[in-house]
């Protein structure tokens, strides 16, 4: 089934916003000209329990759809190439880098961002543990760290092995080294790692 491409007034605005997000790219002048009228693709995402309809330039990543279209700016853009983990969100409960998937590829999916995990008045237990253990300094990587950490505990519970799991056929143990290995896709340039691991271990009920 070919998706019908609608050209809408909103689409033109959307195209402009996508261009603005690219201004930091060093080779911006060398880019091919953006078409004056941008074809957009309609899609529906269920974001933090709410159905959200969007029309996006097909180039829009899930990360940009969340931040620029839905104004959910809790999810952060760090490297924009899957190396830092600041953009980590949960899709159908599984953690992914939202910078490396297109919004159109997630049509119909259920997305949980940091805004959907907890609120300032009612923190998710993982958020509360990060606060208690001082698991951050500047805070920029924190939404990604928290989303990733929530998924890590589910992955361990589901028995998924990691690089440091000793016996592939036994249930993985909740150790410091397991948490560190599984969180290696989330970089913290402030270096809050020891406290992050303590926060995660506390939520897991273990002693890492």
């Amino acid at each position, binding site marked *: 089934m070919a998706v019908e491409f609608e050209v809408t007034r909103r689409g033109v605005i959307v195209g402009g916003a996508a261009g603005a997000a690219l201004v930091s790219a060093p080779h911006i002048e060398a880019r091919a000209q953006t078409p004056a009228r941008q074809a957009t693709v309609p899609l529906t995402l269920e974001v933090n329990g709410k159905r959200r309809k969007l029309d996006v330039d097909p180039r829009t990543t899930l990360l940009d759809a969340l931040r620029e279209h839905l104004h959910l700016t809790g999810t952060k853009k760090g490297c924009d190439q899957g190396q830092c983990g600041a953009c980590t969100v949960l899709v159908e409960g599984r953690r992914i880098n939202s910078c490396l998937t297109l919004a159109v590829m997630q049509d119909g999916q259920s997305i949980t961002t940091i805004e959907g995990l907890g609120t300032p008045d009612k923190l998710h237990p993982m958020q509360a543990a990060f606060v208690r253990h001082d698991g951050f300094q500047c805070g920029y990587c924190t939404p990604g760290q928290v989303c990733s950490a929530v998924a890590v505990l589910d992955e361990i519970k589901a028995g*998924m092995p990691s690089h440091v799991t000793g016996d592939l056929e036994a249930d993985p143990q909740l150790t410091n080294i397991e948490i560190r290995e599984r969180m290696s896709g989330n970089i913290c340039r402030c270096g809050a790692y020891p406290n992050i691991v303590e926060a995660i271990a506390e939520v897991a009920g273990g002693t890492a």
Partner: protein
Amino acid sequence: MRPFTYERATSTADAAAAAARTIGSRFIAGGTNLLDLMKLEIETPGHLIDVNGLGLDRIEPTKDGGLRIGALVRNSDLAANAEVRRDYGVLSRALVAGASGQLRNMATTAGNLLQRTRCPYFYDTNMPCNKRKPGSGCGALEGYSRQLAIIGSSDACIATHPSDMAVAMRLLDAVVETVQPDGSNRAIPIADFHRLPGDTPHVENTLVPGELITAVTLPKPIGGRHIYRKVRDRSSFAFAVVSVAAVVQPDGSGRVALGGVAHKPWRVEAAEAAMPRGAKEVTAQVLARARPTHDNAFKIPLVERTLGAVLAEARS
């Protein structure tokens, strides 16, 4: 990112036909490598065919006792599969040695085989690269080549294939199943799937334009100790400097394949007869035609030591 049009494929045959029909089209599954390269305008497809809805996400037994892994099975699910962990441990180990938890949740079996090199000269669009821009030259040959290939390379390209999974697949004699644009099916032994660079480093595998991978099959289990040892510059989330995949039987016989040394997973079956005689002899045969650069000659002793460690682990 350059503009492109987007469609969702509804059947494998339609997907292959659409790809062959549309100039400049690419399939997209996990997207972790393709989108990264599209942002850098190293990949510039005019049309994307999303294959995520094709239902190729099952792992099933084959009638001859092996395993058929759908092209869209995510790396994390493949690594966690009970049969893979029990019977093909080296594959599970290779998968969890690669990338990060988030990326493994997105990356697919087929996409992993098709991922492009991480050679820094391929990624840097200010540099010459015969793979990115055929005929422009190789920046790595006279440049920084510590990470790059030591064997099977050419004067045109010394890039390595970055996959861990593919090294285990090569060790296990996997077969890549495809559908071609005319709707017919093909089975490609993994040894014939990836190409050496030669004069055409931009042609990385033996797929024809539009051909879609539908599954990867593994022959029936071979037993033995399954080990994947990856040497890298940090302990997690880094590409291999060298890696060794091995299955070692109780009598000391076995198989070995290397990652991080060539444009494809590197395995020399004839050298495996030397397995009971130890790492030095096997390495000498597997890397007999090595042609390292000044920067990466260290990989030869590193392979020997890593294989030595693997064989010691197998005996323990």
